[in-house]
């Protein structure tokens, strides 16, 4: 299984072989390392923990963990379940050369925060009539039945904070790989603001 952590640079476009423009998001993937391995005997399952970047001001407990592992403290970590732990060693750098152009990947990140939004934007509700005496323009309609349950169901879709959530987008194709600059060009849009961390895996 291929996986790497990167930073969103922004969107761009490239021309494919037919001269057709492909919209892409550029991700810088420099400095992904293997932080530790989890094995079935010890932890109950097999996985690899990947780390990205170097933490600037790690606190004492965090520093202690990494001192024990013998590597520099990383900024963020992501765990990846895997069946094959062979050939993976702690501290090893993961390069982008494992990916190929045309690979389908899924990308996880934190989406852009949208603030407090109404039900129309947040959940795609329909709006009310704008005229003919109507006063319910962008308000929500009914919240439920009356006699039973005589209350609003838990989890009812309503206005509130939108965005800033973990989002995964699947089936994105890799359009280009720049090994010199450690950049991956992925077709389409990716979640999050520029500079946010993205977890790319096949």
């Amino acid at each position: 299984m291929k996986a790497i952590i990167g930073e969103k640079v922004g969107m761009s476009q490239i021309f494919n072989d037919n001269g057709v423009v492909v919209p892409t998001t550029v991700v810088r993937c420099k400095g992904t390392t293997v932080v530790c391995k989890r094995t079935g005997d010890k932890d109950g399952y097999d996985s690899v923990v990947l780390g990205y970047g170097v933490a600037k001001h790690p606190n004492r407990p965090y520093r202690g963990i990494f001192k024990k592992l013998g590597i520099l403290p990383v900024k963020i970590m992501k765990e990846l379940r895997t069946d094959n732990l062979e050939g993976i060693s702690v501290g090893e750098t993961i390069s982008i050369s494992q990916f190929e152009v045309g690979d389908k990947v899924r990308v996880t990140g934190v989406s852009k925060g949208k603030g407090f939004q109404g039900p129309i934007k947040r959940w795609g509700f329909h709006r009310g009539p704008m005229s003919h005496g109507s006063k319910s323009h962008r308000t929500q309609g009914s919240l439920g039945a009356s006699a039973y349950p005589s209350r609003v169901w838990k989890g009812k879709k309503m206005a509130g904070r939108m965005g800033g959530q973990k989002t995964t987008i699947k089936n994105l194709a890799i359009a280009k790989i720049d090994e010199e600059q450690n950049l991956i060009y992925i077709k389409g849009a990716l979640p999050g603001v520029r500079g946010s961390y993205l977890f790319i895996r096949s």
Partner: protein
Amino acid sequence: MGEIEDFNVGDKVRVFMKMKEGEKERTQRFEGLVIKQSGKGISKTFTVRRVSYGIGIERIFPLLSPNIEKIHVVRHGKVRRAKLYYLRGRKGKSAMRVKEV
């Protein structure tokens, strides 16, 4: 990317585009007035306008497209606008009138 002569809005240009028809590849020409440039970097485009048989045709080309073989400047024009939208409403002789440098 082919050879591209320096051009600006108001210039009359001839654009040579590579066209693929099945297996065959041929070059198509499009000649007209540059009425607009937009975007920057790799996404920069320009719009060429020509009037053929009384019908105005505008074509938008990506400047850095690999399908552009050549851009030849036929005539440099002098204009005082960045976008020559005012030509759209014109008919006949005045539709392409731009002062020559």
